[in-house]
């Protein structure tokens, strides 16, 4: 068992899946010789050769549309887009085709494509490099939308995504790429897509989050424990679509108080759907309005101001206190 960063864990997932299944291949600009701009595919070209680690032209729609074709031919492509902010060029291929070909063909064809891309703020990057627009994909019937939070679950979820028969959009929180390590077992692991993770148990409030915000939420939970004696139950969603609403609705029934934390803009954001699920299923158990700690409805600002935009422990602590004392 080794202590790996998320970048190394993702690399391990692809290496193991490519070893396991010869139909898995990688495609994207700069992923071969350069190992991807974040080096997630480092070393895979020399191990698997240029036919299976395809350095492609720069064209996001091209990469995803071409991957759909390869999937129809019986391959399992893992496409890398350099940033989620550039994925909109490819959005139409995901929405119009990847998500629909099984449905359109009444089950004759399937599109087992994984489209990986780094998302989110916090690494002082350029404009269009820090967005958190997961709802575009989670809102699309036919796609699955996965966001890991740690090296170990990133490895397991990517392996699951590659083995999944449906198209998966896989958002990688770049804030977590190298900021910490975690022990990752040598043998391959999977986590079923659509299953959330209970990160911390508590009876006073339910904190629902995912991706890069999990660590900030845990930091807030610890402060609330130390400073207020408030015990938080923290749920890491891992998959936004399909959404594991059962676990957080059950937790809300126990605690009666819920705060949702995400860095995506607030309006029509993931929190809105989570609140709708809570209202539909756990309304009578709620003792206070559900609060959202989220990004604001503005483009992610340039890096001097991105920490002001992103939820932090302080904002989360404040929201929890207000909710619990409502």
């Amino acid at each position, binding site marked *: 068992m080794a202590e790996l960063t998320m970048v190394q864990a993702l690399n391990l997932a692809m290496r193991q899946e490519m070893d396991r299944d010869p*139909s898995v*291949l990688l495609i994207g600009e700069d992923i071969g010789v350069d190992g991807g701009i974040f080096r997630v595919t480092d070393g895979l070209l020399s191990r698997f050769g240029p*036919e299976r680690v*395809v350095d*492609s*032209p720069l*064209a996001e*729609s*091209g990469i*995803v*549309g*071409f*991957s*759909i*074709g*390869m*999937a*129809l*031919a*019986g*391959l399992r*492509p893992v496409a890398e887009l350099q940033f989620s902010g550039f994925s909109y*060029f490819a959005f*139409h*291929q995901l929405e*119009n*085709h990847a998500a629909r*070909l*099984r*449905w*359109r*063909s*009444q*089950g*004759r*064809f*399937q599109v087992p494509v994984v489209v990986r891309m780094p998302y989110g703020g916090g690494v002082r990057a350029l404009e269009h490099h820090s967005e958190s627009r997961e709802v575009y994909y989670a809102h699309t*019937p*036919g796609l*699955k939308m996965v966001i890991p939070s740690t090296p170990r679950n990133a490895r397991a979820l990517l392996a699951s995504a590659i083995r*999944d*028969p*449906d198209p998966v959009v896989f958002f990688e929180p770049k804030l977590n790429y190298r900021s910490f390590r975690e022990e990752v077992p040598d043998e391959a692991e999977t986590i079923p897509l*659509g299953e959330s993770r209970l990160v911390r148990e508590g009876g006073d409030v339910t904190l629902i989050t995912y991706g890069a915000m999990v660590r900030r939420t845990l930091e807030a939970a610890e402060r609330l424990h130390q400073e207020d004696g408030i015990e938080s139950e923290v749920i890491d969603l891992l998959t936004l*679509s*399909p*959404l594991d*609403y*059962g676990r957080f609705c059950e937790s809300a029934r126990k605690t009666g108080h819920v705060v949702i934390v995400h860095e995506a803009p607030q309006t029509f954001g993931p929190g809105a759907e989570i609140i709708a699920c809570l209202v539909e299923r756990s309304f009578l158990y709620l003792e206070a309005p559900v609060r959202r700690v989220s990004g604001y409805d503005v483009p992610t600002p340039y890096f001097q101001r991105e920490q002001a935009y992103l939820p932090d422990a302080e904002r989360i602590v404040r929201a929890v206190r207000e909710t619990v004392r409502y």
Partner: protein
Amino acid sequence: MPRKTTYTPPAVEFLSILDEDGQVDAKLEPKLPQDFLRRLHDAMLLARRFDERMLSLQRQGRIGTFAPVKGQEAAQVGAAAVLSEQDWVVPSFRETAALVWRGLPLEGVLLYNAGYNEGGRVPDGQNFLPPSVPVGSQMLHAAGLAYGGKLKKSGAIVLTFFGDGATSEGDFHEALNFASVLACPVIFLCQNNHYAISMPRAKQTSSRTLAQKAIAYEMPCLQVDGNDVLAVYVAAKEAAERARAENRPTLIECVTYRLSVHTTVDDPSKYRSEEEVKTWERRDPLSRFQTYLRNLGMLAEKDVEAAEEAVSARIKTALHAWEDRMASLTDPAVMFEHLYASKPPALKEQQDRFVQEWSTRGEGARHG
């Protein structure tokens, strides 16, 4: 440091074998077996008559909006005819003639155009994709499919269809670029029917030909008389051989004409002249090919009558099959099927709720 020429683009070749009067250029004429020529004819005739019947069904309100194929039968049948069974056709949304050649059941076409998802089902063992409505996007699938076939050593090549308007889309350029750089055995077949809905080809691009767009991608290209089934066949055959032997893509521009409407919600009299349409009617691919077959002594009047009767009987059978099928497809809950390999719980919940609500509705509320 002088200015100098680094590259002189090659000329674009134009291929025509049968002229407007059905006269053949004997030097270019492919020597095809009589039964194969007859199959080409019958497929074009079937596509034409089926199209006419679809138009009348649409006018009666029995099917929805569709894109007629009239005038483009030669471009589609001539190209599809070079493929073997394992090869793939990746259509846009106007490829009825090509898909009928490939074995798509007519009742499936009717079902699709009558608004039933079940019509999109491609029969098992047949290699073509369902219609793709977003313009130009399917060319990337064709390129990827060809690359996948190469890696899997399936031996299959891919033929994809699109119109002149699609050449303005980014996906067209991305597909050509990917196919060329990654050496994909794919034939890009543009049906330049002169209009992208109402936009004439001159407003679509300033390029003198659409074929020349391939030159930027170092891809072989050719312009063909798209109303000449022999020319299309010969061009596609060369492209298929290149794809098989060298894994190289080809762009073929078939110069043809949309004799009917873009789709049944379009009124072309607003933007094109009767005179122009008449000019192209004289170049009709079907009558031209019939003249050629008559000159070969293969198609006497009684043969035409027999072919018409056979086509008519086949369409009639399909109409009956379609009506029977529609009568059995009363459950709209099919919309919840085939979206994911296994249904997520939230979707199952929605479906259960739908089924319950639907079953308690009055008969009148379920229609319209």
